[in-house]
């Protein structure tokens, strides 16, 4: 009899606890969205299907969106999100785009007619210009979201990949080429073919 009472009491306590878990979780969601947003690349490109990085972060926090919808973040970004959320890594969902090397927009200034449409499209204020004046991209501020490309009526915006400079160059992972073995292997392959 005592045992039954104890079990019943335990069940009641757990029930009460469970009642308040969703409340606690709702509070956490905003914090979690912040944390997710901090990991997103902030290109504000909308390729994930949400109108910016913050809305996507909120959707992930709510469980509405998956973690593999951000092409600019790429594999690295998905790894970081998986680690934060304690989920399994998934490859990037190609419906949302493919991972590309970082590029910045470039306006062909001879063709630009000064319509200001790209300025309105740029989410990070990286384009300067005025009505009927030539526009230009502030390259160090451009996140490469490509949102300015479709609105341009004269197709004068192109995406140029960012070249590595001496200041941004990275040391390679130390790898040893096993040259002789590889060449003999290919040589025998060629011979047999």
């Amino acid at each position, binding site marked *: 009899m005592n045992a039954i009472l104890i079990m019943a009491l335990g069940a009641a306590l757990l029930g009460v606890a469970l009642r308040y878990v969703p409340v606690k979780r709702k509070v956490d969601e905003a914090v979690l969205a912040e944390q997710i947003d901090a990991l997103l690349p902030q290109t504000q490109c909308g390729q994930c299907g949400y109108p910016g990085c913050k809305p996507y972060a909120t959707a992930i926090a709510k469980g509405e969106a998956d973690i593999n919808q951000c092409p600019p973040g790429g594999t690295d970004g998905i790894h970081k999100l998986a680690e934060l959320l304690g989920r399994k890594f998934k490859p990037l969902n190609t419906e949302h785009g493919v991972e590309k090397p970082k590029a910045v927009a470039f306006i062909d200034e001879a063709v630009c007619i000064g319509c200001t449409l790209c300025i309105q499209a740029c989410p*990070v204020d990286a384009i300067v210009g005025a009505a009927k004046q030539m526009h230009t991209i502030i390259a160090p501020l451009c996140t490469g979201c490509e949102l300015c490309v479709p609105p341009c009526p004269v197709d004068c915006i192109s995406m140029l990949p960012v070249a590595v400079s001496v200041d*941004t160059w990275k040391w390679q992972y130390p790898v040893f080429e096993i040259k002789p073995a590889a060449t003999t292997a290919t040589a025998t392959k060629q011979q047999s073919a």
Partner: protein
Amino acid sequence: MPRQFFKFNGGVMPADHKAASTSLPIAEFAALASLPGELVIPLQQGNGGSLRALVEAGTQVLKGQRIGVGYDDTGTAVHASTSGLVKAVEMRRMPHPSGLSALCVVIAPDGEERWITRTPFDYRRAGLAATRDYLRDAGVLVGGDFGATGQLATLVINGAESEPRITCDDMLMRERADGVIQGIAILREVLRASEVLIGIEDNQPEAIAAMRAALAKRGAENTQVAAVPACYPTGNARLLIRVLTGIEVPHSRRFADYGVECFDTSTAYAIYQAITLGQPMVSRIVTVAGNVERPRNIEAPLGVPLRALLALCGPQADTNRVIMGGPMMGMTMPGDEVPVVKTTHCVLAGSPALFPPPPPEMPCIRCGDCARACPADLQPFELYSFARARQFGKAQEYHLFDCIECGCCTYVCPSKIPLVDYYRFAKSEILARQRDQEFADAARERYQFRLLRAEREKQEKAARLATKAAAAHAPTAEDAKDAKDTKKALIAAAIARARQQKEQVTPANIDALTPEQRAEIAKIEARREALQSSAKTAPPQDE
């Protein structure tokens, strides 16, 4: 009284091979050969950041003329190292392991070596800030926070050239000790240092003797030449400070925060040249050694290709690469055409026999030899395993950035693991991530500001329309009492405005008219008024 030295843990003692390049005196490049067809002076600083060119293709330059300055106050200027014609300002390969190009000024020498007018600088009258700016403009690398913290307890002069084969500071002190001492005196006065310690390794007795003699001649007080025990890497500024003063400066702090500052002897000499002789930095002493017949020190104009330097010392036939720096910390250059820059203290010709390619890496057995050899008190084997597994956060927890890349761990590793390569990889990867994060944070800020601005503009527009509507509403309150929407109010306001305008217009040509004519006009006006008022009552027909 012999000085008490402090010790650091670890360090290694490889064979120093220094005698090879000290048998010949320092030679001026121009005394051995004529200048090559072009000198290439990079508009890029060693510590990152680029310079703005002051010349363009076709400009005639004099030796010592400034050709590049920083975009802000921190960039150290570069100068033409000979007189001649600027051939181009274009991308050239940098003396950097990446083999990437950066903007360079290419000068075709005219062989006349015409100097700019050289005037000594009165640093006593100018004061600290002006002296710092002068040295920056004279191209001397003294650091942006030069003298920023006021008085110094100890000024350390680094003559401890601990890396094997390098002898440029040794030879400089042997042959030009007086200039170095004068440079040190200037530094001491400008930085208000109460004590100067000149640290020289005890395997360079000639340099120690020369410096002591020069010191005795100049009679500087509280200045001491300290013969520190030879051990690689004592030549590292942080470690030399530790050996001489016992102060351990952490990676994240400046020397000056601890009342010490450290300058190389070559910097002291460059300061002497800049201030006492009025010569900006246009050349430097470079040790050429390794797989060459006549290793020696050459005073090379900046911008000379490494190939030209090696050619003066007779490179041997099996030379297959060029290393800038010493055998421990040097980096293989992408080619032998890259120029001498301000930080080039040594050029080594490499050959498979002299510097054999690293044997295949074996697994780490965690023997701990690297930890015993590490002068920065790190655990290299842990750092290695984290860097290898790309666990960069962990590597930082183990103080990866305290690593000075001296190569002692690689030198002692029984498994022949290129440990420093892993640390460099991890460091550059972490720095790249930090850059990306800063960029993303800045982008987020701009995006949020943009959203805020869009919202504000919308509100401002609505407020503007509302006030306009309200203003229009007030004078026609009676007429438009029944008008329910703002559009109607706006129309009413426009009508009212038009009427007001019309009333204000007084014909300017009635002054000269007779009273009869005026009366007639008044009559017509009254008729028009009546018509207008009847028209005003008409609109209800529309409804």
